[in-house]
C-alpha cells in the first residue's frame, strides 16, 4: 500500500524533471543552431567588409574608370599601373564559351536521364556525373595541360595550346555536373499529366521532350545554367594552369589570357599586406564577388519561380 502511494509521485517528480531537462536541452540546441546560422551571416558580412576595406583604397591611386578600363597591368613596376580590362574581358570570354559548350550537352544529358534512360542506366550514370563534380580543379588543370592543350594546338594550328579556349573547355566539363543535376531535377518535377497529355495527342518522345518537358522546366534549366556560369567565373586553378597568362586584351578565344581569378591567385603571394598591389588585387576580388553574387541571385530568383510554378 505504502509503496503504491509512493511510486506514482516518484514517477511524477522524475517526469517533471525530465520534461524540464528536455526543455533546457531544447533551448540549448535552439540557441546553438541560431548561433550557427548567425555565424554564416557574420562570415559573409566580414568578407564583404574586408573586401571593401582592403580594396577601395586603390581608387585613390588609380581612378575607378582607369582601373576598370585600363589595359596595362604592371603591378611590380615602378610606378605600378593597374588596369583590369584584359582580365575582365578574359573572364567574360572564357565563361561565355564554357557556357555555350556545357549547356546543350548538359541539358541533353538531363533530358536523356529524366525522360529516356531506363532506371538502371539512370542509377549508374547519375552517380558517375556526380563523381565528375568531385574531381579537384588542379587535376582538371593537369588534364588540360597534358591532354587537351596539345590537341587544341594541333587542331587550330596555334602557336600554343595554352589559351582561353582550352580553359573554357575544361571549365565546361567542370560545370557540366551541376547543370545536369539541377536541370534533371527540374525536368523530373514536370507533372506527369503534362507528358501523358502530350503522348495522348500522339506526340513522339522527342516532341514531348522538346515541346513539353524543356519548356515547362525552362526556369529550372535557366537556374542550372546560372549556377554553371557562377562556377565558371569563380574557377581559379584550372584557368591559372591552362589559360596561358598573357596580359593582352584577348582578341580571339585562341589567344592566351589571364582571368580575374588567376590574376589574383598569381599576384597575391608577393603582395605586401596594405601595399598598392594588395589593394588592387582586393579590388579585383571585389568586382569578382559582385559578379558572382549577381549571377547567384539571378539563379536563386529563377529557381524560386520554378518552385512556385509547380507548387500544389
Amino acid at each position, binding site marked *: 500500500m505504502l509503496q503504491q502511494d509512493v511510486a506514482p509521485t516518484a514517477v511524477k517528480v522524475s517526469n517533471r524533471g525530465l520534461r524540464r531537462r528536455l526543455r533546457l536541452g531544447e533551448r540549448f540546441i535552439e540557441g546553438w543552431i541560431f548561433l550557427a546560422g548567425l555565424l554564416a551571416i557574420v562570415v559573409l558580412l566580414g568578407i564583404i567588409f574586408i573586401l571593401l576595406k582592403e580594396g577601395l583604397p586603390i581608387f585613390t591611386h588609380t581612378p575607378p574608370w582607369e582601373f576598370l578600363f585600363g589595359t596595362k597591368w604592371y603591378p*611590380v*613596376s615602378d610606378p605600378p599601373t593597374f588596369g583590369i580590362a584584359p582580365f575582365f574581358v578574359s573572364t567574360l570570354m572564357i565563361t561565355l564559351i564554357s557556357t555555350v559548350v556545357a549547356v546543350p550537352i548538359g541539358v541533353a544529358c538531363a533530358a536523356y536521364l529524366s525522360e529516356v534512360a531506363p532506371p538502371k542506366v539512370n*542509377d549508374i550514370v547519375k552517380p558517375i556525373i556526380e563523381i565528375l563534380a568531385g574531381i579537384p580543379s588542379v587535376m582538371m588543370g593537369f588534364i588540360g*595541360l597534358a591532354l587537351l592543350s596539345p590537341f587544341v594546338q594541333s587542331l587550330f594550328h596555334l602557336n600554343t595550346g595554352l589559351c582561353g579556349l582550352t580553359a573554357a573547355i575544361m571549365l565546361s566539363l567542370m560545370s557540366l555536373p551541376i547543370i545536369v543535376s539541377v536541370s534533371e531535377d527540374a525536368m523530373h518535377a514536370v507533372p506527369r499529366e503534362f507528358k501523358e497529355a502530350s503522348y495522348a495527342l500522339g506526340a513522339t518522345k522527342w516532341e514531348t521532350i522538346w515541346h513539353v518537358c524543356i519548356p515547362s522546366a525552362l526556369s529550372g534549366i535557366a537556374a542550372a545554367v546560372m549556377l554553371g556560369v557562377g562556377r565558371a567565373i569563380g574557377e581559379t586553378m584550372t584557368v591559372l594552369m591552362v589559360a596561358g597568362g*598573357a*596580359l593582352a586584351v584577348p582578341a580571339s578565344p585562341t589567344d592566351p589570357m589571364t582571368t580575374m581569378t588567376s590574376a589574383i591567385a*598569381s599576384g597575391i*603571394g*608577393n603582395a*605586401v599586406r596594405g601595399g598598392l598591389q594588395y589593394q588592387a588585387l582586393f579590388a579585383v576580388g571585389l568586382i569578382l564577388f559582385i559578379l558572382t553574387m549577381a549571377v547567384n541571385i539571378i539563379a536563386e530568383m529563377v529557381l524560386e519561380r520554378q518552385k512556385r510554378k509547380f507548387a500544389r
Partner: protein
Amino acid sequence: MFKSIKKRLLPLSLVLVTAFVLAGCSTTSTPTTTTSTTTPPALSGSFKIIGSNTVTPLSSVWAENFMKANKEVGIAVSGPGSGVGIASLIDGTTDICQSSRLITSKEIDQAKAKGVNPYEIQVASDALSVIVNPSNPVSELTIAQLSAIYTNKITNWKEVGGNDAAILVMARDTNSGTHVFFKEHVVQMAGLPTADKTLEYGNKVLMLPSTEEGVSQVAGNPNAIFYAGLGYLNSTVKAIGVKKTADDTAVKPSVETALNNTYPVSRPLVYYTNGAPTGVIKAYIDYCLSAAGQQTVLEAGFVPLSK
C-alpha cells in the same frame, strides 16, 4: 537506406575498377625511403623557408641533408616565388626567405616599418638560362634581341636567323624573382648602353605560374622560348648562348662561365632572415655555406660561391 547505398556503390566501384585497370597498365614503382633513428639529436626545432621557385630544388636538398644529420630538426621548404618570400618575411610568416633577386629599397622600408630587419646571406649563384626547344636552329642571341623578343617587337624566329615561325614567348608571373631580375637585366638591358628603364614585358608574353611548366612547354613546342635557373636545365631543352652586344662572343650558361663572370646574366641566390640568424637557423645556414653544402650546390646544377 541500404538499398540506396548499394545502388550508389555499384557505379562507383565500376568506375574505380576501370580506373585501376587502366592505371595498372602504366604503374611506376615508388621509391621507398628507410630512416634509421640511432644517432643522438644535437639540434632541435623547426623552421620555414619560403620564396624563390628557382632556389627551391637547392634548398630542398640542403634541408633534406640537414634533417638527416639532425633528426630533431624539421624544415619546410616552399617555392611560390621570391616576391612571395620577401612579402612573407615582411609579414613575419617565414623564418628564412629564399630569393633569386635582391631585396629592393622599397621593400626594406616596408620591412623596417613592420619592425623586420632583413639580413642578407648569399648562398649560391645562378646563371639565368634562356631556353628553346632542341629542334630550334637558333643557338645564340644578343641581350638586345632577347629584349625585343620579350617586348613583342620581334615576333618571328626568322628575324633572328631561325625558321619562319611565330615566337611563343613565355615568362614567369610577377611572384617570381626571376621575372623581376630578367626584366631589369634583359628586358630593360641594365648595364648596357641601350638600357631603357621604361621597357616592360610585352602583353603577348605568357606568364606562367611555375618554372617546371615553362620547361615542359619548351620541351614540347619548337617555337617556344623561356628562361629558367641553371638547375632546371635538362636534355629536353636547349640553352641559348647569350651575347652582351652583337660584337661579343656568345657564352653558354654553365657553372664555369658563371664563376669567371663571362656569362652576362648571372645572379646571386640569397637567403634573408630577420636580423642575423641564431640557433638552429644559424646552424643550417652554416651548413649551406660549408664545403659539403657548396658541393650540393654543384650537384643541384647551380653555381657555388667562389672561394
